[in-house]
């Protein structure tokens, strides 16, 4: 059995076992005590604190606390397990009141962004590698500017060399905006080639108005358009690989603050935890 599969099976089994165990205990306690919500609540909060700690763990890599890969696996499966605890805690009911609603929404956003994050983290790298021509994220603006300058220079040179403004006009009308900055973000995320095909189609159509010299320039422009499209693809995917964490982490801290307030309120307005 391969390493990844074996580990998935191990963590999956642990998750199932923990779910069965906590559900059984909860069912037994439900009849015996009215305090079962405190049990699930504290368990849920404690686990959420541990899960939040993963972000701190990354900041102290020199401490011999094991491999980040194992901690991420724990983070993923324990994160799913919080879903089980959450459902037990709310007894599968819709939240009542705005405070609980906000708490539920924050939890849902953290859970959803986490699931989305792992889908992106597992899928996007394969797409980036398959497409090739990778540029480090912080160098993308520089390469983009170089491509724009090359395209502009080509369009301008065609006016003087071919004594015709056909390509320059086309550049102003169709390509200037394309090279001006990152484009077709969503299309790249969903692998939609329509914008690129439309642009290449228009460039192909232009050929009938060009002489031999201009056609060579148009061919070079096609190559630059393809390069820029590839760069936008890299940017879109690399950006989303980073962006989801900008949702997941801040909302996690908001959730933790809200959960602390929830605990204070519970103890403040209930008969007290005696």
């Amino acid at each position, binding site marked *: 059995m391969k390493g990844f599969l074996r580990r998935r099976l191990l963590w999956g089994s642990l998750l199932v076992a923990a779910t069965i165990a906590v559900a059984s205990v909860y069912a037994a306690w439900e009849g015996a005590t009215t305090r079962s919500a405190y049990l699930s609540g504290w368990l849920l909060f404690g686990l959420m604190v541990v899960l939040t700690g993963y972000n701190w763990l*990354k900041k102290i890599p*020199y401490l*011999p606390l094991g491999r*980040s890969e194992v901690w*991420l696996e724990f983070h993923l499966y324990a994160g799913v397990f919080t879903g089980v605890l959450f459902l037990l805690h709310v007894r599968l009911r819709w939240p009542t009141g705005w405070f609980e609603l906000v708490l539920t929404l924050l939890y849902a956003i953290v859970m959803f962004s986490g699931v989305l994050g792992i889908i992106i983290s597992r899928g996007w790298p394969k797409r980036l*590698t398959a497409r090739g021509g*990778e540029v480090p994220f912080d160098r993308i603006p520089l390469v983009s500017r170089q491509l724009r300058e090359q395209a502009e220079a080509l369009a301008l040179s065609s006016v003087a060399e071919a004594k015709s403004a056909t390509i320059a006009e086309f550049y102003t009308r169709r390509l200037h905006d394309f090279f001006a900055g990152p484009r077709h973000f969503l299309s790249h995320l969903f692998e939609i080639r329509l914008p690129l095909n439309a642009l290449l189609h228009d460039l192909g159509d232009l050929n009938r108005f060009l002489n031999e010299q201009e056609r060579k320039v148009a061919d070079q422009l096609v190559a630059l358009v393809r390069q820029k499209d590839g760069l936008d693809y890299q940017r879109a995917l*690399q950006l989303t690989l*980073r962006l989801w964490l900008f949702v997941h982490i801040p909302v996690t801290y908001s959730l933790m603050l809200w959960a602390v307030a929830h605990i204070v309120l519970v103890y403040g307005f209930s008969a007290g935890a005696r």
Partner: protein
Amino acid sequence: MDTVHFVIDKPERWDSSFDPEMTDADVSRLMEIRPFSEMDAGKFSKRTPLRGILKNDARIRRFKNGEIIVRAGDYGSSAFLVLSGHARVVLNPGLPASLLGRRKSQRKGLFEIVAQLWTNPRDPEVRTAAELEQDSGVKVGLKQRGVFLQDVPRILDEHKTATMSPGDFFGEIAALSRSARTATIFAVGDETELLEVRWQGLRDLLRFDDHLRHHIDRIYRERTLATHLREIPIFKRLNDEQLKRVIEQTQFGTYGDYDWSGDYKRLAKEGTRSPEKETTIAQEGDYPNGVVLIRSGFARLSEKFGHGHRTLNYLSAGCEFGLREIAHNWRQRADSVPFQQTLRVIGYTHVIVVPTPVMEEVVLPTVPEHELPLRFTSEELAGAEQSDTRRKLDAGAKIGPELMEFMTENRFFNGTSTMVIDMERCTRCDDCVRACATTNEGNPRFLRHGHTSGRIMVANSCMHCADPVCLIGCPTGAIHRGQSGGEVVVNQATCIGCSICSNNCPYDAIRMVEIREEDGAFMVDKDMKPIVKATKCDLCSDQIGGPACERSCPHGALKRMDMNNLDAFARWLNR
């Protein structure tokens, strides 16, 4: 319009001599001294005359009392002849690492590791006084670029040493077999004068003159070969008499360039690397005239494929080539086979060849049938089937032929801790870079960027090479192998910032940086020039948990791999 032509001389071997200050008078003086006085100058070629070798590939060096000439563990490319004065060789056990100007190999304690939370400096490349403090037993002379032992009488009292006098020759084995110096030798008295002959000159002296070659071959056979052969399973049953016969008949071969990194860098830049341009040690289809044992360096094992050659594997120190063919022919004389693959030099390779007659008469009769390699079947020879032996040999089949060629072309097989990144798992989060920086006081020691083949990237990080070219020529021995895991580390106290290691590294994994004081100001010397030090990945050798880059990768995409263990690499690829 007139065209201006710039005419330059064709570069010649001796354009850059070992010591431009060597004079004809110096050479004449050397010609009076043994072994040069006994050499027949007429045997040398016109392009490389004896006097030319001595003038351009040798230099006279004077050492002060206690100055280290060669240090155990260093990689050197030259040999020495004592001209006057005396030197002492420290016998086993050698001098402790601290006396040799090495970095003390010690891991941080748990408190020191936790303390990194608040002790990491804000500025890059800060060095504390303690880091730059040299051990009291050793002193680095910046002007003379030498390292001096501080208390010679005490060393002579406490350690067993042997005296080397005028006429003694040393350092040739390490220089020729590209192995680490086995002993430390230091000067005694202020009048010690030595002739240092660089590797290229030594090679020519051996090629044209039997006298020196016999001398060195004898030492090599006596000191090294017997021990080496005893370690190889097929020779382990030989008695002393049989072993002596084998040693007498064994031939040595050195191929490629000692400092191959320069050529490699040039070829890589030109994009003209190809197996066909590499020197052949043994050719597919030729009569198997001997078993080739790789002593040091690397060799490419390939076979004909279409109109080119397909790399099957790369062989490193301890591997053999041709044994199966010779054992087959010995058992089936009527049905003999030629070499089935080609063996080529990659960079630099030092080999030992045990000729076929010796193998057949002396060695093979001592080996039980079940320990001999399998015979070739007619199906295998016709290419209709693949034997287990052949399958084991074909690393390309395990990791994929494209990746195999990629590893070989880029010389990545040299790495014992190569940083490989699975780009289909890597989310480009740079946690590895941040972890490296945090662990190294804010200074990342690698770039998450490098050559890529398919989904595998080899990042620009020190690979802690099996053949560490960077160690060659370090004047103070600051760059050296660590005592624990063989990692290549730089002692910041003894590094003089000469850039030799950085220029030698074929993989551009060593950076020269201007260092700062703890308050952030650049450190400068008396002439107000910035102090420069070599920096590189040290495999987090002072941390408890091992390399931070590998531990910090959340997706298991980054791994430090020994590229000579292709089975482990294949397992990781197919995990």
